[in-house]
């Protein structure tokens, strides 16, 4: 890929202190985010995907810290930021976020207009009537009709989908470079999900945003992402273009994840599920973190952490299966079927 990365993460380690014990939440993750792309980070709950992006904005909970690594943005290392003043230059202004649950992400006692204006005044240097006009135009942009009237209303007067539009409006009002959508549709019902995803895609074009989606819904991913990063136990185990990860996955965890897609299930048969639980990150993980849950794990998977093997220029995976010496193990049938038939059923 020729484009210059807008954000570079290098060997990032994030740890949390929980009741005197250290939890290694992000284990040496590197990632390049390219300008204008749309990256999806997928993984199960607790895989560290939210924590990972929170480090870009200095929003880790107070018991967590970046232990090692760099986050390069605009020639500056965000990891070196210590004061709130420094972070305020990044939050919203450069990187904005849409949270999961629109029902609770708005202040219930302020009109939505005021909440959008707050962001406009902070980041666009518009005030008074100009800020108000800008707010109305953003509300129109996110598909809220009668913006004049709606702006004066309070969050409880909006439905879930409409509130998520408002949250998106707030994020866009910051005029960020990067928009992080942390499970933007998880709390919404299915009919609204597609609308919201479409809206984010349109806004991405209009405002030339680089977007990161965090999700555990592979259906969402197929719809919106250029590239996919699969996270497991605080590590990106596979990353590649959307087609590469969907149609030519290499890591056993990606296989397992794809096999559990309901769309790939056979009617009448129980849906595939991954056995076991993710490793306990209070202890250092030895070898491949997924090995204990992988029925076909190799011996070396338990002993040595695999490096990244490049499948193509854009596709790499952390699995010993890609080592020339490894035995040939075929992906499960469902995954092979996916490669030939494609994903259906979404949108």
């Amino acid at each position, binding site marked *: 890929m020729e484009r210059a990365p807008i954000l570079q993460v290098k060997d990032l380690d994030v740890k949390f202190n929980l009741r005197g014990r250290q939890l290694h939440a992000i284990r040496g993750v590197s990632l390049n985010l390219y300008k204008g792309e749309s990256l999806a980070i997928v993984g199960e709950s607790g895989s560290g995907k939210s924590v990972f992006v929170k480090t870009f*904005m200095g*929003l880790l909970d107070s018991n967590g810290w970046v232990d090692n690594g760099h986050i390069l943005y605009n020639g500056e290392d965000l990891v070196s930021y210590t004061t*709130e003043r420094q972070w*305020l230059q*990044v*939050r*919203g*202004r450069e990187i*904005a*976020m849409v*949270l999961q*649950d629109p029902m*609770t*992400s*708005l*202040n*219930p*006692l*302020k*009109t939505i207009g005021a909440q959008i204006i*707050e*962001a406009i005044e*902070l*980041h666009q240097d518009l005030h008074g009537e100009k800020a108000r006009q800008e707010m109305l135009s953003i509300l129109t942009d996110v598909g809220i009709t009668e913006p004049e009237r709606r702006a004066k209303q*309070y969050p*409880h007067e909006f*439905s879930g989908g409409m509130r998520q539009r408002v*949250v998106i409006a*707030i*994020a866009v*009002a*910051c005029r960020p470079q990067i928009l992080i959508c942390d499970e933007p549709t998880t709390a919404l019902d299915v009919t609204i999900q597609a609308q919201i995803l479409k809206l984010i895609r349109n806004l991405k074009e209009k405002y030339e945003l680089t977007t990161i989606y965090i999700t555990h819904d592979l259906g969402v991913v197929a719809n919106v992402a250029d590239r996919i990063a699969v996270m497991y136990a605080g590590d990106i185990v596979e990353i590649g273009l959307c087609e590469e990860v969907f149609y030519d996955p290499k890591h056993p965890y990606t296989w397992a994840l794809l096999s559990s897609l309901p769309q790939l299930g056979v009617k009448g048969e129980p849906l595939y599920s991954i056995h076991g639980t993710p490793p306990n990150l209070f202890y250092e993980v030895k070898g491949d973190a997924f090995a204990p849950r992988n029925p076909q794990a190799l011996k070396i998977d338990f002993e040595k952490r695999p490096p990244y093997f490049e499948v193509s220029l854009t596709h790499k995976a952390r699995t010993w299966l890609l080592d020339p010496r490894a035995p040939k193990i075929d992906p499960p049938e469902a995954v092979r079927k996916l490669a030939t038939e494609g994903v259906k059923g979404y949108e």
Partner: protein
Amino acid sequence: MLKYSLKRLASSVLTLCIIIVVVFVLLRQMPIEGYFDNYEKLDEFQIQVKLTQLGLNDPVLVQLKNFFVKLLHGDLGTSSRYSAGTPIATIIANKAPVSIYMGVWSMAISLIMGIPLGAAMARSKSGFWDKFGTAFIVFINAVPSAVYYIFIQTYGTEALGISMLFERENWVTWILPVFSLSLGSTASYAMWLRRYMVDEMNKDYVRLARAKGVSNKKIMMKHVFRNAFVPMIQYIPASLLYTICGSIYVESLYSVPGMGGLLVDVISRQDNPMVQALVVIYSGIGIVGLLLGDILMGVIDPRISFVKKEGAR
């Protein structure tokens, strides 16, 4: 809004009437001995004369009607035993102002001390202010107030070199009673504000505000504090009005000629007209306080709607 207020007002008046009737009827069940200083020495005739004079020989319903008619004309009646013959309104007019001034001052002070304390506690969660505040709150709530009131009086008067007794014209003598009175509510304001603020701080909208680049200070002021204060506002009118009742402990410690203990006093002396009048006043205040609190909340919190919703979400 207006309709709701009127409806609430009507039900408040009804509540008040019920309270009055219940108290009125209960008071008529009291032994008649209580009405006399020298019951044993009087013969039956004298007793009956006195009772008729007091209007106690009429049927209860007639007595009740007379009471309400007088009440509607603004007449609270005259004291029968506490200060025989004096109109109750005069007695209260003499005593209430001191209690009210003292109460309002102490409330102002507890707001001034309690709110910043609560906010500081929430901000420094499990830091110094939080620990200090918690210690203070636990102390105030655990130790009977009489204990620290006496300490404040003994050591306070000594340290400041002021008189133990209250004099209305001398403002220095107001300091200790007002301070003593304010401690309890300071602790509860701090406790509730901290609690509500911590609740608010953990909400998603605060995370979103941080993510959009609002500084912590502004988040605290414009979002957290404001939202946390709303549920507290509900109780302010009631506490303001309740200051009229005065405080038994503090007022008796410093000999403040206020309302504190008046009700207990008149009940023990079986001064029926006074008891009734005070019940009307105190319960009226309680009801009006709650009503004002609810209306105030409705004005401030947009989520509270006074109109019936038509199934919309």
